[in-house]
């Protein structure tokens, strides 16, 4: 049995080690006990309240026991569309407890979790760190029975997926589902070519090449990558950092998972090229903990790079030192926001920072830092090899190159597609076999719900921008159920720092629910719109600034659905059932109202 006194002192006496200590303690005991809190606080010189603050921020850490084995079942809308409800019931029946609880024997804990990046193979779950995909009720029961009878999750895995998922270091059920290979990411690439070519150039030339290529960030915001690198390089500082954003938390995106599985060398080359360009010696890959199953694989790619002189001292024989470390998340969508990511990487609660200063000025450990998406860095490596002109020739004038899209939902061929920018939604539906779609969600919950009238719109930065999440909704889907799932996601994942996002989304969702229940008025409908805009305008970071989008974009795309639900012409309809409330009051006071007939007709 592991002991606190063996785990905690192994870590440096440095507050930055907080999340690493907590992760070890959580893994060993299934929770972080009061005793552990005290010990960790003492070791790191923090207050106990602060330690508790970090533990309670992250979904995969907990103060209360989560069971000898813990099941985290994905709660994304796609998971629901693919049969989550029946799978959840099977888990509950077999475990003997509800979701959010631990079974009486302490053996099994069941918890929901936000999208785990497996939308193309739902329902999926993480059981003791092991990913199970395409779950059925029978499989769910078998997993729980296995756990109870002493078969660990990792021994229950199978059948294995394709590609590197089959390797001894991964051994995952995950399938890549690569449906279309484009020339940028999946083009033939000679290992190390990008690094060797970059270090033969001057750093400014590397930046110039990326700028000329017109590479815009693939993580969602679309900031010009070359410019970001240039800003960072220009900052006066002896130390700079390259950070790769591998948090991939937007529900419905899983393309970075495929890059990390199949194209990790290309990604690490991209990070090294960035390091050379900005003058950094250290790169950090921030890997969401849902992808922890890829860690050994990624470490082994890094080890291979070191062996071959592509990382370490004097890279490719030049006067350039660079190495990469991997840091883990612990279940928080907000940690994909770059400044929150940096906080988390520094071992703290993943709360966004105020800007300015921007990460290129003060980033990791307050040093100039570039944060880039996995795909951006992989594309940068290819640009260095093939040249800016080659890249610029693809896509549209404002959106150069290709985009890796994650397509899921009601389509015949879910998976990743590397396509040139400018593709219409209709073209994509054709490729993926999504005929008859009622709506397509472009860019995940924070993006746009596109109705059929908009299927001619193009996927590119100047029209439908997306980090890569595309979810297809078939003709029978209930738009309101989708919106509700997305709003629940934002309420769950808001960091809570600022008022409009923390409280506003709860209030917005309440009014939305009132309308869906048929108790809304025209005034409620107007409130949805104005409150939504208010949350967007006043929120502190991108999460809050996009969180009302599920409601706002469906109000725009499907106004008739909302119109049909409201009570036209009625000035006021209470959200609560007054009579029911009075009955409760009467029961509590042990009195009966004197008039028997209905009070409010």
């Amino acid at each position, binding site marked *: 049995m592991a002991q606190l006194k063996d785990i905690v002192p192994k870590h440096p006496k440095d507050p930055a080690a907080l999340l690493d200590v907590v992760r070890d303690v959580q893994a060993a005991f299934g929770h972080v006990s009061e005793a552990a809190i005290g010990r960790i606080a003492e070791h790191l*010189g*923090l*207050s*106990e*309240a*602060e330690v*508790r*603050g970090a533990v*309670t*921020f992250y979904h995969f850490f907990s103060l209360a026991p989560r069971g000898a084995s813990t099941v985290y079942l994905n709660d994304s809308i796609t998971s629901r569309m693919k049969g989550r409800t029946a799978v959840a019931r099977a888990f509950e029946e077999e475990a003997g407890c509800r979701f959010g609880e631990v079974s009486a024997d302490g053996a099994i804990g069941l918890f929901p979790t936000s999208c785990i990046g497996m939308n193309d193979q739902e329902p999926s779950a993480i059981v003791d760190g092991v990913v199970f995909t395409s779950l059925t009720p029978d499989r769910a029961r078998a997993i729980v029975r296995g756990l109870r009878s002493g078969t660990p999750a990792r021994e229950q895995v199978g059948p294995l997926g394709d590609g590197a998922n089959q390797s001894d270091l991964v051994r995952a059920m995950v399938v890549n589902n690569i449906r279309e290979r484009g020339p940028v990411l999946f083009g033939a690439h000679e290992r190390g070519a990008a690094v060797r070519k970059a270090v033969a150039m001057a750093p400014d030339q590397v930046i110039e090449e990326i700028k000329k290529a017109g590479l815009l960030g693939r993580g969602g915001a679309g900031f010009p990558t070359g410019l970001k690198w240039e800003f960072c390089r220009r900052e006066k500082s002896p130390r700079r950092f390259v950070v790769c954003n591998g948090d991939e938390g937007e529900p419905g995106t899983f393309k970075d998972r495929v890059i990390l599985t199949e194209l990790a060398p290309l990604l690490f080359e991209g990070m090294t090229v960035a390091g050379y360009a900005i003058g950094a010696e250290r790169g950090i890959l921030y890997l969401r903990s849902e992808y922890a199953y890829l860690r050994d694989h990624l470490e082994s790619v890094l080890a291979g790079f070191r062996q071959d002189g592509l990382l370490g001292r004097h890279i490719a024989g030049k006067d350039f030192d660079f190495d990469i470390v991997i840091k883990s998340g612990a279940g*928080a969508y*907000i940690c994909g926001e770059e400044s929150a990511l940096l906080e988390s990487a520094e071992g703290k*609660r993943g709360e966004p920072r*105020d800007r*300015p200063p921007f990460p290129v000025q003060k980033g990791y450990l307050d040093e100039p830092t570039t944060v880039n998406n996995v795909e951006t860095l992989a594309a940068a490596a290819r640009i260095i090899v093939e040249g800016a002109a080659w890249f610029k020739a693809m896509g549209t004038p404002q959106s150069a190159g290709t985009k890796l899209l994650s397509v899921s939902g009601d389509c015949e061929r879910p998976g990743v597609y590397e396509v040139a920018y400018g593709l219409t939604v209709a073209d994509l539906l054709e490729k993926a076999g999504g005929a008859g779609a009622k709506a397509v969600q472009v860019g995940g919950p924070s993006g746009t719900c596109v109705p059929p009238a908009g299927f001619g719109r193009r996927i590119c930065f100047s029209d439908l921008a997306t980090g890569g999440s595309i979810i297809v909704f078939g003709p029978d889907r209930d738009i309101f159920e989708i919106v509700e799932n997305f709003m629940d996601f934002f*309420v*769950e*994942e*808001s*960091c*809570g*720092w*600022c*008022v*409009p996002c*923390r*409280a*506003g989304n*709860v*209030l917005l969702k*309440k*009014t939305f629910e009132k309308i869906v229940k048929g108790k809304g008025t025209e005034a409620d409908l107007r*409130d949805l719109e104005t*409150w939504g805009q*208010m949350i967007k*305008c*006043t*929120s*502190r970071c991108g999460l809050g600034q996009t969180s009302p989008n599920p409601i706002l974009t469906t109000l725009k795309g499907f106004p008739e659905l909302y119109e049909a639900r409201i009570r036209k012409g009625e000035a006021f309809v209470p*959200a609560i059932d007054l009579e029911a409330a009075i009955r409760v009051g009467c029961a509590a006071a042990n009195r009966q109202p004197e008039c028997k007939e209905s009070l409010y007709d």
Partner: protein
Amino acid sequence: MTETDIRFTIDGQACLAKPGQTIYEAAKANGVYIPVLCHFDGLKPVGSCRICTVRVAGRYMAACTQPVTEGMAVENAVPDLEDMRKALIEMLFVEGNHFCPSCEKSGNCELQALAYRYQVMVPRFPYLWPVRTVDAGTPLIMLDRNRCIQCLRCVRGVRAKDGRKVFAMVERGAHLTVEVDRKLAARLSEEEAREAMDLCPVGAILRKETGFAVPIGKRKYDHAPIGSAVEKGTGR
């Protein structure tokens, strides 16, 4: 005006700022009131309440965290921004449990004072009536989470002798709440406990065993509305 002064405007009024000043600080120096709630002079601004939201060239930003730049044209007391501020105040009221008449801070409370200034009658939002707890487990102070507005002032401003934080935020999202470190709080002096209470803009941190020393009706904002000192050019 000196060489380094930055010229900018607030609602068309010409103003001067020192380099590095935030919009809020510069506004105050120019006698323009921008309402703040989470902000406290001397503490690092955090932009959590968003009540100081202003607009510059169509972009919204928190005046307490945003530095002034040359030529900036700040929109401040315009109707749509004022309505958003009022909405944020209302959100805080419905998000917690605020029963002003029974609160020791009534009259000294900045949330209440802002509600008066913005003429909040009935919030436009439904009350959420959250279940929140009170922590009276430390010798000198009582933490009433019903009234907490998560402004982070105590988190930023109250430290133990060795620099450790006495207050910290726990949980996230709608469950975000403040926690007091019992061990560290037990070592607070009378003086420090009083400072913690004064730092709290609402009645969430109270000094135990004393109360209503100044009667309601004779308290800070009973005399003059919040912001009036800035507008008269006499400070906070």
